């Protein structure tokens, strides 16, 4: 049986991971290159093995083997080939396999790098990777096995199990449940793998951090090795978050992109610590400070990644993402607590060695501003974490409320939750602070910087940026928060462009290059810095989009007869036609309306808001008609229609100013990350004193 084959490969991979982890540990302890080499082989073996597991599962999905419960739950006859393949991550069991598979690919890629200079790290990096991998494989084997089949036992009832229960027959359903229609969207096809790739690649810098702590080689070598990994992890995670937003905007039909859903927050939290980490490692590299802090950040990121994987798939929290319920919670929490405690214990052991030999002197130095940036990121993390965890605490700690009346409002003993307003109110000032720092920090000098020198650098772009709120005011923006937000955006843009211009001009003068060439060389020479600035520009553009939709979104709704119209701002929407038809080969019924859109009385085009009804899952899906321009989106939803006459139809119309800048900013952001992460030629090797022994280690 093919399912048995897949399960067998899964179990073997688990055993190989355990062996590899043990061999790495033993090899490191006994200082035995042979054992370490054996561990490395085990690491490398997990990838082809897991490829086999994943391909087996994909084969089962594609061949419609509905006797396999996972296949029946995420695919159906009406699904096209590509959706069947991507159903690999359509449910929890498959997602975990996908997680392990990419984890193994990344860890294998790392073990293939040139280790000559970092021989002592190798066994520990393998150990951490394999222990993490083994945990996820164990989860797949024990709790979330995608190869379990459906059996009918002699009493007639149905059981799901890996192996045939006595006296039972295999059940072959003729069709499966199918992927939730909400997930049948191109964004949904790449959004989960991007998030997962981001999650998985953060394991690598963590593995190096632990290796550094165990071996006591606590200089910044581990950071230099993993710099690019961290950026790549961050790139995938950012991409995953942006794609998720885009999917929500396109599919969920509420004209929003982010709902502070617990699952969104779960993916956002490692991004926050990861971003703080990306900034604070620069301080360690440049100033040899914040070493403890960087360790704490990467440990937090790792455990938040595991936490995020758990939350996104476990269904413990009610959210749009909760498509599955599962029993993997206790196992996940044990693993998270265990790795967290062990990591902190290791950090505690090296605490003294990590002490910085220099200290910050000026509140206005760049390192101090980076530190503030870190505090703000952690602040947002605390807001998010509190929001997710408080409901549990408030209920469990009710006795505090009953004992101390002053706290009775906080600890009620009753289950509490926070909606989006909590997150918006608590994080908005922190995000504003981050934008402000984004403008100021690039102009601050390292080490000695005073309010005066900083002021001298800031005033020019600061003054120029005041044009932005003035312009906004003239365009009838009156809300103080919006004016402030626009000013912050303008400030960062001016500072960043000013930085580019200043440096390019200097280069132009000294090297005699043209301005364009100077810019190009500038970015090429110091990719991380200028890539970072491009990322900042991307963030500001995204902020513009967010300000637009959050502060200036307007909406209207109404039921129209044919030819009737709805007006919203400068737009008029005229209901023109509605057709209801079956697309049987795709298993859905489609109600598609045609509306004509007028802007300031001028006809500008048609939109086709529609509603698909999926027969097998008995679920409708609302697909908006959207007219996108750089200025705004007109977002029209078909809410309802008269079934018989198709004469009257109800529409909901949103006007979302500036929202496209959110997506454009996302693209700029990704480009900037690519610039920053683009590989450099390998750094020259230091004096080759230790090389011969190392060479022997690799050969044996």
């Amino acid at each position, binding site marked *: 049986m093919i399912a048995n084959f897949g399960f067998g490969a899964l179990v073997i991979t688990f055993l190989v991971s355990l062996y590899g982890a043990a061999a790495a540990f033993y090899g490191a302890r006994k200082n035995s290159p042979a054992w370490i080499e054996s561990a490395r082989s085990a690491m490398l073996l997990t990838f082809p093995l897991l490829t086999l597991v994943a391909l087996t599962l994909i084969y089962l999905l594609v061949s419609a083997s509905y*006797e396999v419960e996972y296949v*029946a*739950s995420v695919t159906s006859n009406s699904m096209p080939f590509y959706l069947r393949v991507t159903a690999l991550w359509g449910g929890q069991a498959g997602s975990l396999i996908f997680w392990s598979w990419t984890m193994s690919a990344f860890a294998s890629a790392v073990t293939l790098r040139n280790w000559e200079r970092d021989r002592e790290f190798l066994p520990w990096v393998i150990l951490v990777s394999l222990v993490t991998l083994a945990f996820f494989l164990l989860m797949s084997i024990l709790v979330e096995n995608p190869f379990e089949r*459906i059996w*009918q036992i002699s009493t007639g009832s*149905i059981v799901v199990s890996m192996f045939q229960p006595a006296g039972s*027959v*295999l*059940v*072959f*359903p*003729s*069709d499966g*449940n199918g992927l939730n229609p*909400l997930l049948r969207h191109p964004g949904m096809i790449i959004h989960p793998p991007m998030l997962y790739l981001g999650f998985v690649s953060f394991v690598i810098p963590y593995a190096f951090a632990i290796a550094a702590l165990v071996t006591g080689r606590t200089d*910044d070598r581990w950071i230099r090795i993993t710099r690019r990994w961290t950026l790549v992890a961050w790139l995938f995670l950012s991409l995953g978050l942006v794609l998720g937003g885009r999917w929500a905007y396109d599919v969920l039909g*509420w004209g929003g992109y982010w709902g502070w859903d617990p699952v969104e927050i779960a993916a956002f939290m490692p991004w926050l610590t990861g971003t703080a980490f990306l900034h604070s490692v620069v301080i360690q590299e440049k100033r*040899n400070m914040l070493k403890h802090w960087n360790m704490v950040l990467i440990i937090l990121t790792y455990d938040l990644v595991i936490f995020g994987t758990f939350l996104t798939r476990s269904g*413990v929290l*009610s959210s749009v993402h909760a*498509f*599955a*319920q599962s*029993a993997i919670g206790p196992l996940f929490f044990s693993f998270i607590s265990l790795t967290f405690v062990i990591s902190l214990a290791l950090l505690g052991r090296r605490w003294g060695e990590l002490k910085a*030999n*220099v*200290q*910050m*002197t000026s*509140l206005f130095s760049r390192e*101090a501003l980076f530190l*503030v940036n870190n*505090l703000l990121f952690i*602040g947002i993390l*605390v*807001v998010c974490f*509190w929001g997710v965890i*408080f409901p549990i605490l408030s209920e469990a700690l009710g006795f505090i409320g009953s004992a101390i009346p002053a706290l009775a*409002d906080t600890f*009620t003993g*009753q*289950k*509490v*939750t*926070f*909606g989006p*307003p*909590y997150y918006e*109110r*608590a994080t908005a*000032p*922190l995000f504003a602070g981050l934008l402000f720092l984004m403008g100021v920090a690039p102009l601050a000098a390292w080490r000695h910087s005073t309010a005066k020198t900083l002021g001298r650098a800031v005033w020019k772009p600061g003054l120029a940026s005041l044009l932005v709120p003035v312009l906004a005011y003239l365009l009838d923006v009156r809300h103080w928060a919006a004016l402030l937000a626009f000013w912050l955006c303008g400030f960062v843009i001016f500072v960043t462009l000013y930085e580019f211009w200043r440096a390019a001009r200097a280069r132009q003068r000294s090297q005699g290059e043209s301005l364009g060439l100077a810019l190009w060389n500038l970015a090429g020479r110091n990719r991380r810095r200028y890539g970072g600035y491009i990322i900042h520009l991307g963030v500001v553009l995204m902020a513009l989009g967010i300000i637009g939709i959050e502060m200036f979104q307007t909406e209207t709704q109404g039921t129209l007869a044919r030819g009737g119209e709805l007006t919203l701002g400068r737009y008029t929407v005229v209901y023109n036609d509605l057709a209801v038809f079956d697309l049987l080969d795709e298993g859905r019924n489609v109600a598609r309306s045609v509306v004509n859109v007028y802007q300031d009385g001028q006809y500008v085009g048609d939109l086709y808001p529609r509603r698909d009804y999926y027969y097998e899952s*008995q*679920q*409708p*899906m*609302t697909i908006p008609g959207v007219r996108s321009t750089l200025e705004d989106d007109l977002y029209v939803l078909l*809410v*309802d229609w008269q079934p018989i006459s198709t004469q009257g139809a109800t529409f*909901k119309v949103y006007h979302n100013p500036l929202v496209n800048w959110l997506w454009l900013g996302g693209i700029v952001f990704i480009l900037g990350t690519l610039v920053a992460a683009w590989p450099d030629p390998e750094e020259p090797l230091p004096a080759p004193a230790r090389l011969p022994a190392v060479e022997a280690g690799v050969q044996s």
Partner: protein
Amino acid sequence: MEKALEPRPASGSRAKFIVGGLIIMAAIVYLIVSASRSSAQYFYTVEELVTKGAAGRDARVSGAVIGDSIQYDSQTLTLRFTVADVPADNAEIEALGGLAFVLHQAVTDPDRARMEVVYNGVQPDLLRDEAQAIMTGQMGDDGVFYADELLLKCPTKYEEAVPNQVEGGG
């Protein structure tokens, strides 16, 4: 790499960093406390809301949707439906036989506490019989729950669907 050796700064300089850090932390704590006071939503069960009300608080409640009760007025985009009481706790739901089963029981049991819900907006795609509705809003004096937010969850039910589709054994 070169180690920049600088004299340790005077303690006054250290103090200003500590004060600066404390100010930022205090601001973060203030933001969290003020935001959580003003926007906490309290979980209730349908039964609690029907019998005791919510004391004017923002309430969050989960219930099983009774399909026959769904009425949608597309003129005003007013959605009305009735939900039946289900346990609030996930573990309890699991212990009772899973979400699908609990929802089915709640809908078919006429003795369960029931509550009418009014929601203004677009009818959600997942709203149907035996779906779990998670609502946020206020309990009106008229005994009707006015929801500002409506989330829905449908359990997968392959266990029930499979026997009808069996073609043959193997």
